[in-house]
């Protein structure tokens, strides 16, 4: 039970182990622990950042969709307007064309009526002369009764 000189060796051995652990063990294990702690902290911070970025991106996407919708509505509106304009213009053009065609036709008709009338007039005059000759029984001198005939033609 009473200690002997062994205690000196035991003390030195203990001290040696302490020194070894302090010099070659502790710093390595502490470095590993601290590095891991730092990595975990960094990872958590990165996750937080990513979450915030995702939120930002979501907001931006919603914004873009809203803008696109407004733009599409605007485009549709414009298209409607344009279509209306085109229809209106076509209507007006058609009306104008119709009026023009009608006018041309009228002129043509008028011309043909005049010509027909002239032709009829000539024929009426000759018929009248022939009729009158038959009634009178003699040749009417066309030249002598020219004034009379012209008056007749004008009356028909």
């Amino acid at each position, binding site marked *: 039970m009473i200690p002997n*000189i062994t205690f000196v060796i035991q*003390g030195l051995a203990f001290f040696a*182990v302490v020194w070894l*652990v302090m010099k070659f063990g502790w710093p390595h294990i502490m470095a590993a622990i601290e590095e891991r702690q730092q990595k975990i902290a960094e990872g958590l911070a990165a996750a937080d950042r990513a979450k915030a970025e995702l939120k930002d991106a979501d907001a931006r996407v919603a914004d873009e969709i809203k803008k696109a919708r407004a733009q599409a509505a605007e485009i549709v509106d414009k298209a409607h307007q344009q279509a209306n304009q085109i229809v209106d213009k076509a209507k007006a053009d058609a009306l104008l064309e119709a009026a023009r065609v009608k006018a041309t036709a009228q002129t043509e008709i008028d011309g043909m009526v005049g010509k027909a009338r002239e032709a009829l007039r000539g024929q009426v005059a000759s018929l009248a002369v022939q009729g009158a000759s038959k009634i009178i029984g003699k040749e009417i001198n066309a030249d002598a009764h020219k004034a009379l005939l012209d008056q007749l033609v004008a009356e028909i």
Partner: protein
Amino acid sequence: MTEYIVHHLHHLRWPREDGFWTLNIDTLFFTFVLSALFCLLFIGTARRAKVENPGKLQSFIEMVVVFVDGLVKETFHGTSKLIAPLAVTIFGLVFLFNFLDMLPVDMLPAAGHAAGLKYLRIVPTADLSTTLGMALCVFLLIQYFGLKHKGPKVFFGEMVSAPFHAHGLGAKIALAPANLLLRLIEEAVRPVSLSLRLFGNMYAGELIFILIAVMTLDATLSHFSTYLLGFGQFIAGFLWTAFHILVITLQAFIFMMLSVVYLSMAAERH
């Protein structure tokens, strides 16, 4: 029976059986084996420590390291490269030394006897030489810490000016011997209490194991009492071993914690 107990409490000594100038070979052998094991485990794992995906052994060692480091940071508020590794070493070594007490009390001595060793005591901390050696190491470190953190002037000044503070030169000189005496007692008590506490616990624990083993000493199968005592020995051995798991851990922890507290106190001014 007495012979059995005395035989179990005798160290394997060289070069003589008694006296101060002799070595406890068994204590030294198991100390070196366990110290080497501790160094191998701790330093080996530390050098191969991985930041990502640590192994089971590394995780266990890190758990102990973080636990001890937390205790040290709570107690000692300065910065020191020594104090936390010292605490881990004390805890690990004392626990390993104590743990040999868990082995059946006759196992290694019987093996030693078969190998020609007359005596063998396997628990290094049940030898006062071991605990005293460690406690004196801590004592020297306490003095070194005090000198380093306070400076020689405050360190030696406190020896004669605390705990009784005096005003005026005459009173100071008058109180100096009392202060110095108290300081010497305070410092001397620490290694003594540290070493005796651990040694006492482990020695008593070993003695109880020996006494439990004595229950069936020289028993024969023809006696009825053998079966009764055998059963009693099993129950007692089981209970004491289970309780001793607590004791060896607690004693290792106490030795560590008190060393940390003493070192912290040495670094602080009174």
